[in-house]
Structure formats: structure tokens, C-alpha cells
């Protein structure tokens, strides 16, 4: 295959990942030089109960040239400013709650992170609410949202955001997008995969109705089972459930509860896992992610149904998964995207992002003139690094807690954790510094919000934060509060903002 020019690309599986891939391939590579086919079966249901995203989705949508307002209307989306974590420190019946915002805290002062100045202030004032120095958190508390006018940057406390949307509508939207750009959709179930006898490369897939779809390059979007990457190429799976023990998710949509539309996701800590609440325009997505060693599927479903914020619209559906990742996301002429490449629980809304990362990486390194092993190896190493970073971040949510009130939480609190995370937490505890490398998805503000929110307050802060007088410190903090509340006061109500977007279409 090396040196062979690639012309025919086959995406096996629809769903969100399949159509995101097809859309980006059709936009970036075009359908003149390439023949892009997507095979999907109506028989295989897709997973899609309201998805939350993180800000890098803007880059993906921009690359596709998608108009944001249109996207909002098409996918019933709402705006997301971050995630509210309830009960993660002390337990679901406790009042503890923290917000992991998309933006940063305050503003860097004297070349060091604002966090250090805040820590000094928190120590001397006894007020540990860092949310007061973050515009997304404050907007979330008041259910406000607005876009920041172009040209008003960091010093004006721009509001960072992503979306909550109906992933199946996103898939449908991208399907129309893709088909308009010449992607061929084939309805059918793959029953057999043909490989080159010598190289093992996939050459074609055979459908139930007898069609044979040949290709030079295959994208495996077949979901958990990994039809090509695993069942055919035996890429192997790294199991991470010793650190992230949840292995089930019960999901159910409910009616939109009365009251404001929250511009954020709520993750509530539960006896054997956690529950999500994702507000969409027309309904609310709910789910209980749990560990089957500590609670049965039936009981988890029962608990979920009893804890819905409004009337359920369906019966709960249970998904089973093993947390971990495919050892090689790219093997021979197959790249796995979506659930086929691995699974990390949606605690930090990373599922769609991790698919998009692979898609964008693939586009930028697309092997149009043939596949080179060096490229493949680097690609796999890069993707693995992304997974590892997200994994450590997720583990921190379970590990750093005061909760010991249920066997599950006791297990999490005392479980062994990867060395990479251990080191990071230790540095943070001792110095207040978050050690983050540039390629990592979750940066200092995220780690800081979650570690402090979960109850790890550092013993020290940067010595530079002690060099100004107490009054000067307060004046600077007041300045930051002024900037943030100025921004906050310009923001409209989230629901009203959404209505305006909806009405723009009605007006033509």
C-alpha cells in the first residue's frame, strides 16, 4: 500500500462520528479528487441523548464553515459555559457545589497566574469562592449568556462557551452537509470484511444485501465493537477501568423543566457514580453513569427515574462500556474514530472532542500519496497523549474527595492512581502550581477549578503574590471584579438569547 495513491475513502458507520468525519473529509479533501462513501444501517441505533461539548468545537465548525446560529437552530442547541459539579466533595445530599468554567480566573498579574493572588486573598479573607473572579461562573449562576463582541479580548473578560445539543440532530445536519458536497451514503449492514492476503490491509466491505464496497482507506465509526479496527485488525484495547471503574450509563430524556434554561451541564455525584443533566432547547438529557460492581442496572435505572427534574419522555436505556482506548487508533489503512477508538465517560464532555481531534489530525496528515509507518506511529502517540491527559483529569474528580459514605466512593478515594497524576497533584498541593504542558487539552484554569473545587487547597502560593501590600492586593482584585461584573451586566438572559436566534430564522 505504501506509495499507493489514495482515492476511495470509506466511512463505516454513521452516527455523530461518522458524519463529522464525512463532513470534514468532504470539506477538506473534496469529492472531486476523492470518492467518499459512508455506509450506515438504520438497523443499528445510534447513541445520542444530548451531548455536551467543549470550546474546541468552534474550530471544527469553523473549518466546516458552519454558521453558528444555523447550527444552534438545527441541533436544538443551548450554550454551555462550563459544568457544575454538585456533591463531589462531600456527597449528593450535601450543599457542596463548584463550577468548572471554560474561561480562566481573573487576570494574570505581574506575570504570574491570578490563581496565586486569589489563594493569598482566600487565605486572608476566608472566602473560598473563586467563582466570583470568573465571568462564566457568574453568568451561569444567573442563567445569562451573550457573545462577546469581536475585538473585546481577554482584558474585557470575553465569555468562553461551547454547546449542549442533540447529537443525532447534529449528525443529521452534517449528513445533509456531506451529501450536498458529494458524499455517497450507502444503506446497509456490513457482514464481511475483505483484507489483502499479504499486507492485511482492508480492501472492501461486503454488505448484507450483497453489495461490495471497495476502498483504499477506511474510517471505522462502527462504535464500541470496532468492526474494522478490532474485529478485523485486532488492534488491541487498553483497559483503564482500574482507575475509572464506571462501566454503565443509563440514559433518558425528560421534558424541559419549568424555569430558566441553564447555560451549563450539571454533574451530580451519586452513590455509585454520577448523574448528568444536559439542558437542550426542547428537552433535557439525563443519565446515570455507574459502576455495575456497586449497583445493579435495574437499581441504577430506578434511581435515575426517581431523580429526574421533569417527566421522562422514554424508558431509560442502558449502555455498557469499558473505559480505555484502542492501542492503535490508526492501524494499516484503518483509522478508528468515535467509540471504536476508545471510551472515556462524558464527565468532562470530551467524547465529541476526542473524535474531532482525530478527524482534524487525520485531515492534516492525510496520506494522499500512501501510508508511511512513521506518520502512523506519531499519529497514534499523539492521540494516546490526548487520551491520557483526559484520563488523568477525570480520575482527579474521583480521587480528590472527602466522600467515603458509599463503598463506591470509598473505593475511589483510596484507589491507586497513575504516577503522572500523582506527581501533578503533589506539585499542586505543595506549590499551588498546575504543571501543564502545552499540548494538553485541560489547562491550568481547568485543573485549578476542579482540584480546588474537589477540596485540594494548596499549602503555598507563588511568593510573588506576597510582594504587594494587602490593600494593593484588594484593589487589584476589586479591579478584576469590576471588569467581570461590567461584562456580566451586558449579558442577556440565556433563554432570551436563544429565542432571538430562533426568531432570526423566522424573520428570514
Amino acid at each position: 500500500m505504501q506509495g499507493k495513491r489514495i482515492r476511495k475513502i470509506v466511512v463505516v458507520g454513521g452516527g455523530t462520528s461518522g458524519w463529522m468525519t464525512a463532513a470534514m473529509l468532504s470539506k477538506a479533501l473534496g469529492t472531486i479528487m476523492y470518492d467518499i462513501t459512508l455506509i450506515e444501517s438504520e438497523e443499528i441505533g445510534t447513541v445520542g441523548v444530548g451531548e455536551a461539548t467543549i470550546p474546541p468545537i468552534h474550530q471544527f465548525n469553523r473549518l466546516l464553515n458552519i454558521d453558528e446560529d444555523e447550527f444552534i437552530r438545527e441541533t436544538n442547541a443551548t450554550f454551555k459555559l462550563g459544568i457544575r459539579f454538585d456533591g463531589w466533595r462531600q456527597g449528593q445530599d450535601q450543599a457542596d457545589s463548584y463550577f468548572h468554567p471554560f474561561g480562566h480566573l481573573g487576570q494574570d498579574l505581574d506575570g504570574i497566574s491570578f490563581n496565586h493572588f486569589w489563594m493569598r486573598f482566600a487565605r486572608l479573607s476566608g472566602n473560598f469562592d473563586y467563582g466570583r473572579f470568573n465571568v462564566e461562573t457568574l453568568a451561569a449562576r444567573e442563567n445569562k449568556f451573550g457573545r462577546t463582541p469581536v475585538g473585546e479580548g481577554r482584558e474585557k473578560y470575553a465569555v468562553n462557551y461551547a454547546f449542549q445539543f442533540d447529537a443525532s440532530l447534529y449528525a443529521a445536519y452534517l449528513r445533509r452537509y456531506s451529501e450536498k458536497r458529494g458524499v455517497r451514503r450507502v444503506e446497509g449492514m456490513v457482514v464481511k470484511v475483505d483484507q489483502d492476503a499479504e499486507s492485511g490491509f482492508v480492501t472492501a466491505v461486503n454488505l448484507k444485501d450483497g453489495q461490495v464496497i471497495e476502498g483504499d482507506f477506511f474510517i471505522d465509526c462502527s462504535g464500541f465493537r470496532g468492526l474494522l479496527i478490532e474485529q478485523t485488525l485486532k488492534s488491541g484495547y487498553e483497559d483503564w477501568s482500574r482507575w475509572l471503574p464506571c462501566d454503565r450509563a443509563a440514559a433518558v430524556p425528560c421534558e424541559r423543566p419549568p424555569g430558566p434554561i441553564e447555560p451549563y451541564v450539571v454533574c451530580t455525584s451519586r452513590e455509585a457514580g454520577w448523574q448528568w443533566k444536559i439542558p437542550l432547547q426542547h428537552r433535557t438529557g439525563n443519565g446515570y453513569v455507574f459502576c455495575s460492581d456497586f449497583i445493579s442496572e435495574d437499581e441504577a435505572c430506578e434511581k435515575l427515574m426517581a431523580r429526574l427534574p421533569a417527566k421522562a419522555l422514554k424508558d431509560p436505556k442502558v449502555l455498557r462500556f469499558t473505559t480505555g482506548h484502542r492501542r492503535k487508533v490508526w492501524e494499516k489503512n484503518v483509522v478508528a474514530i468515535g467509540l471504536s477508538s476508545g471510551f472515556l465517560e462524558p464527565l468532562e464532555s470530551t467524547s465529541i472532542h476526542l473524535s474531532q481531534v482525530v478527524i482534524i489530525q487525520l485531515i492534516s496528515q492525510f496520506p494522499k500519496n500512501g501510508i508511511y509507518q512513521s506518520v502512523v506511529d506519531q499519529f497514534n502517540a499523539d492521540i494516546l497523549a490526548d487520551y491520557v491527559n483526559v484520563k488523568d483529569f477525570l480520575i482527579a474528580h474521583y480521587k480528590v474527595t472527602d466522600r467515603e459514605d458509599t463503598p463506591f466512593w470509598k473505593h475511589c478515594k483510596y484507589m491507586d492512581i497513575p504516577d503522572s497524576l500523582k506527581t501533578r497533584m503533589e506539585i499542586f498541593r505543595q506549590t499551588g502550581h498546575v504543571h501543564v504542558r502545552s499540548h494538553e487539552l485541560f489547562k491550568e484554569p481547568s485543573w485549578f477549578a476542579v482540584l480546588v473545587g474537589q477540596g485540594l487547597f494548596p499549602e503555598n502560593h507563588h511568593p510573588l503574590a506576597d510582594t504587594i501590600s494587602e490593600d494593593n492586593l484588594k484593589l487589584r482584585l476589586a479591579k478584576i471584579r469590576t471588569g467581570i461584573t461590567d461584562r456580566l451586566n451586558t449579558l442577556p438572559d440565556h433563554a432570551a438569547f436563544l429565542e432571538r436566534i430562533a426568531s432570526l430564522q423566522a424573520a428570514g
Partner: protein
Amino acid sequence: MKVVIFGRDAAAWLSANALQSALGPTGLTVEVVELPSLSQAQDIYPALPALEAFHGQMRIDEHALLKATGGSYSLGQSFTGFGPAPFFHAYGSHGVAIDRLPFFQYFTRARQKGLTVALEDFSLTAAGAKVGRFIVPDSTTVSFARTDYGYHLPAVAYVDYLRAKALKSGVRMISVRDAGVEQDAEGNITALLTRNGSRITGDLFIDASGSDAQLMRALEIGFESWRGWFRGDRVLAAAGAPYANVPPYARIEALDHGWQGLYAAQDRTRLVQVHDSRLISDDDALQMAARTSGLKLGDAVVSELNSGRSAQAWAKNCVAVGEAACVFDPIDSPGLHTIQNGLVHLLALFPQADGGAVERTEYNHLMQQGFERTRDFQIVHSALCGQSGAYWRALETALPETLTRKLETFRARGIVPMSDGEIYPLDSWEAILTGHGLVLETFEPLVEATSDADLMAHLKRMLGYIREQVQSMNSHDSYLELFCK
């Protein structure tokens, strides 16, 4: 030597603190004979900027005070319905002098040439206040402008704060429901007699009993009524929820039957409304208050108002402080300042043990001046108010000669002749006279030396500087949050 303070609330406890902190170290004994407080949750003390320095002398920490009382800062007062347009009386200066000549003269000239920018737009204080900013004067601002501030102090908490501080510093206290006055043959007070038989002796007595002026009455000191200039005879006090963003200034509005002031604080928003009971009933006044303020008001208290002054502020061995000496209409917030002024002069003229006849004469002279100049300032509102409501019809009494002279000089030359004892500075006079719509006929010829183009450039620079400074100011809320919570 021993001073006995008889009375209640801010007058009594500011007296106790001022005397104790200044003269306690010299061996003076201070005892307060406290009457039941009349302060209620609805009441507020709006303070003019001078209070900051006075507090400083008593070593009262401003941040701690505002934290303890739930009070807030005040950069001035906005007036609506008094002149041709709403205007702002800022606790600060307007513009900067050009070639060492007063800014106001240039402003007058520019207005005659068609400038439409309001006087308050040249005030850093007003510009900041109107957008909810708070200014702490620093080296950059002082070179441009005077930017002072006062406070809005919730009354109950403020009195509690002062009482606790006084007691901690060694002031003695006894609580009484009332007391009898024992005098010697010359009429000097020798002791206060309580119901349970105690006899509290002293060398000097302070009457801090409020408008009752109980000691002054016992000494049969006469009272000069000012009702001919101030129609209001009722004060309604009420409170509502605090504003989401606490405005750093008071809002004063002229109504048909009186006027209304809104004083924001961290804990609640207080309303003070003065009306004339001959024009409106108390019940109607309350309904009007709720309607015009837009606040959901809790219990309201109506009390009588009888403005005027005691013929003497110091009689025999008794000094009246606060309302016992002079009762003001609460417009322009002179109340606390009257107490402060009395104490500052008393400390400066504090009598020796042998009587103090000389000091008394000087004190009475100074206090009368201060009271009357303050009164003149307040009369401007009634004299020049543009409202057609019954409350604002022509005054029953002719303007005091001192005020007439000010108005005439101002009209003719844009100059306000200031006399001794003024508590409102020149900037304040310029702000309210201009705000009430007084049109000037001419200005100082010296300012003609600057060309039109230069003048416009100067004015533009000032406005630009103010805009920039306002941008960089802290909001009142965040300042309160960081320093006073």
C-alpha cells in the same frame, strides 16, 4: 473635670467618642446618660465628606465601619425635578483651572459660546458615580481634581458601633428613660437626676437629646423657627431591598408635595421623604413614596419636623450638639455634619474649669454662622425649584439677605461670595446654582485671554481624561466587596 452627655443616638455617641479620644488622655471623664434610642431600621445617616477626617481623628477605620454597619460610600447627590434638567451635586471639583483662573469662569464663557456639555460632566466624581464607580483619591486623581466621598450609614448599626467604641475607650454610661435637671442659683446645671434616685454630677453638660433639646429647654433657651423657608413638617422614613448594584450616591427627587431621597447601602435601600402635612396626608405620602421610588417599602415611620435653631448653642454650662442646637430639613444631608461641626468647635474652644464665658460667646457666633450658611444652601432648592407643585410655591418669608447677595453676585459675575462657616464648598454652590438653572450674565474678563480654540482644546482634554479615568476605576460594588464585607 467631667463632661456629662445627655441624649441618644449619633449626637450622644459621636460626642462621647470625640471628647474621650481628644481629651480622655488629659484626664477628662466622659459619662453618657443615655435616653432610649429613636433610631430604627429604616433610618440612615447620610454623611458629607468631612466625616472621613473626623472619624480618622477618633481612629475609626472606614472599612471596618462600613463592614459593621452595612453602609456604603456616597460620591454626591443627584437631583431630579429641581432644575431644567436633572443634575448632580458631586463631592468633588469641576474641571481644572486654566492659567490659574477658575475653571467655572471658562465654563461660563464656553456655555455662552454654545457649549452644551453639563457642568457635572467635568467632574470626575460625578462621571464615576453615575456609572457606579468608586474613586479613592490617589496621586493621579489629586493632580486633576478634588474627589471626596461621604457615606450612607444605617443608623442603628452606626449608633451601636459608636457606643461600643466609646465604652471600650473608657466612656461611662448609664441608661435612663428620662432625667431631671438640677441647677444652681446662676442657672448652671449641677446634676442630672434619675428616677431611681441617682444624681449624676458634671462640670459641663452636652445636650444630645435631639430636637426635644431637653436641657436647653430646662435652661429656657428660645427657638427660632425656619418654617417660612422650609415648608416640610413631616419626615417619612422607610426601607426596601438593597439594589443589585449599590449606587454610590443619593437620589433626590422633587415631588408635588415635598421631596424624596433614596440612600442606598449594602444592607437595604432607605427612603427619606419630607412633605407638608397641609398638602398631603401621611398615608397618601407613603403611597406616593412607594410609587415614585419603585421600591417595595417595609414599615414606614413618620415623624414631625420643625426646622429652626436654638437661640444659643451653648448656654450656661450646657452645649447643645446636633438637633438640640439646630434642626435642619434633611435635604443636602447636613445632619451628621452639624454634630461634627459642634464638636470640632467645642474641642477647639473647650472651657477651662472656671466657666468659659469667652469661649461660649465665640462658640455661639461660629455655630450660628455655620447653621445659617447651611440653611442658605438648602433654601436654594425651595427658592429656585422649577417644580409647579404646591410645595414649591413662593416662599412665605423673604430670602435671607446673605443668600440674596450670593445669588445676585453669582448671576452677575459667576462668583459665589463665600463667608466663614460654610459647610458646602464653592464647587457645591456652583453645582446647585447651575443645576437649578441660574443663567449667568457675564464672566471675569480675564478669561478672554485664552482663544476659543485653546479653550475648546482644554475642555476636550479634560473630558477625555475623565472618560479614561472612569474606565480604570473600580466599581463601587467590587470595592465594597473587597474592603467592606
